[in-house]
């Protein structure tokens, strides 16, 4: 029987690896420390650079800021003034020019029709946060006519109010129920008639 006796102490044992563990550890520690130092230096440099750039930008902005604020104030005030102007203009967009309209109505009345009353009134509606308000008008023409062809005369008036001279402004022209009837006034002839023609104007937006 052959006995192998190991006379080496533990601390005297050597590894067969070309890079012993101790050396590997030392290299690792050096590498980690080196990386940390490099990263730290890079970060310090990057921070300095960012600081300098920010300082430059700050200085530049300090120069520009007062003028820019002035410009912004000008823009804001212009927007406000424009808004106020639009408020004013809304009034004009939503109106019917009655001076001309009265002339047009007069020209449309047939010779054998006598107008006794003209009433027009506005209707403002639809003002919500999302819908622009509109202004419409209702006009009533009340008058007299006579003869066997009284209805023809009123029809002629309606036809004239339906011509292109009016149709771009008028939405409807109607004689309401009971709007064409015998003249109740004293001394009126059997064939005399009174009428009421209702006209509705197209709505115009306050814009």
């Amino acid at each position, binding site marked *: 029987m052959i006995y192998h006796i190991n006379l080496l102490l533990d601390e005297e044992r050597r590894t067969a690896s070309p890079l012993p563990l101790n050396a590997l550890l030392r290299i690792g520690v050096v590498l980690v420390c080196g990386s940390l130092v490099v990263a730290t230096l890079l970060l310090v440099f990057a921070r300095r650079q960012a600081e300098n750039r920010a300082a430059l930008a700050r200085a530049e902005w300090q120069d520009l800021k007062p003028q820019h604020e002035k410009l912004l104030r000008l823009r804001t005030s212009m927007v406000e003034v424009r808004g106020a102007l639009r408020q*004013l203009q809304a009034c004009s967009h939503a109106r019917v020019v009655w*001076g001309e309209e009265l002339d047009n109505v007069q020209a449309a009345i047939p010779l054998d029709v006598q107008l006794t009353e003209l009433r027009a009134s506005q209707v403002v509606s639809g003002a919500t946060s999302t819908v622009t308000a509109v202004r419409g008008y209702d006009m009533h023409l009340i008058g007299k006519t006579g003869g066997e062809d009284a209805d023809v005369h009123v029809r002629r008036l309606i036809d004239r109010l339906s011509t292109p001279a009016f149709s771009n402004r008028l939405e409807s022209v109607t004689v309401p129920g009971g709007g064409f009837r015998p003249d109740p006034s004293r001394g009126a002839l059997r064939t005399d008639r009174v009428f009421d023609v209702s006209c509705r104007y197209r709505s115009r937006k306050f814009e």
Partner: protein
Amino acid sequence: MKLSGHDKKRLRWGVGILLGGAGLLYAYVHLVLTPLVVARDANRNEDDTLRAEIEQSRVDFCDATTLRQEAATVQEAYTTDTNLFVLRPVLGSLLMGAQRLLEPVAQDCGLQMDPCVEKGRFEIPPRRGDGEKRFERYAMDVTLQGSYRALADFIRTLERTNAFLCVSDIDIQGRPENPLRHKATIRIEWPVAVENRLPTVPSGKGGNGSTVPADPALAKKGTAP
């Protein structure tokens, strides 16, 4: 595998060193590197923000001339419109301001005019983007007597000389005793400045808070309500 006493000792040392190294590394990253990164990023962000603002301001400066011209045009239109067309009170009375402008027009048109009757203030329906309300509609009734033609002339003159005035109601009644002379009640709406929010007009005649009609020459002729 059974480790010898020496191996155990070495392993303990190794583990201790590894843990200590990791702790040191963590502490270094946390206490030294992270603040550096945070500071760098903060500076970069500030720089980016400022650069963006500078860039925007440069773009704005490029348009400054156009903006100034536009602002001047808008301001001029506003000044003109408010001076000419917004009803201004006479000694605090809008009614008197209106009557003072209407009477000469009625007289020129050959109409007999009764004193006006105030009907109140109504808001101009708001639209989005209009901002603060600066104007309202001031309504008043005016009663006139005269021919149909004269009434039409009266309204036409008012509407031509004031683009923002609105005739909201008309009631013309024929009179059997005199078919050529009618009685008419007309409701007129004028734009007026909202109280305590008079438009700021930096220059031009009839400025802020004026209590006389903006254009006395026109008012004198009776053609400029």
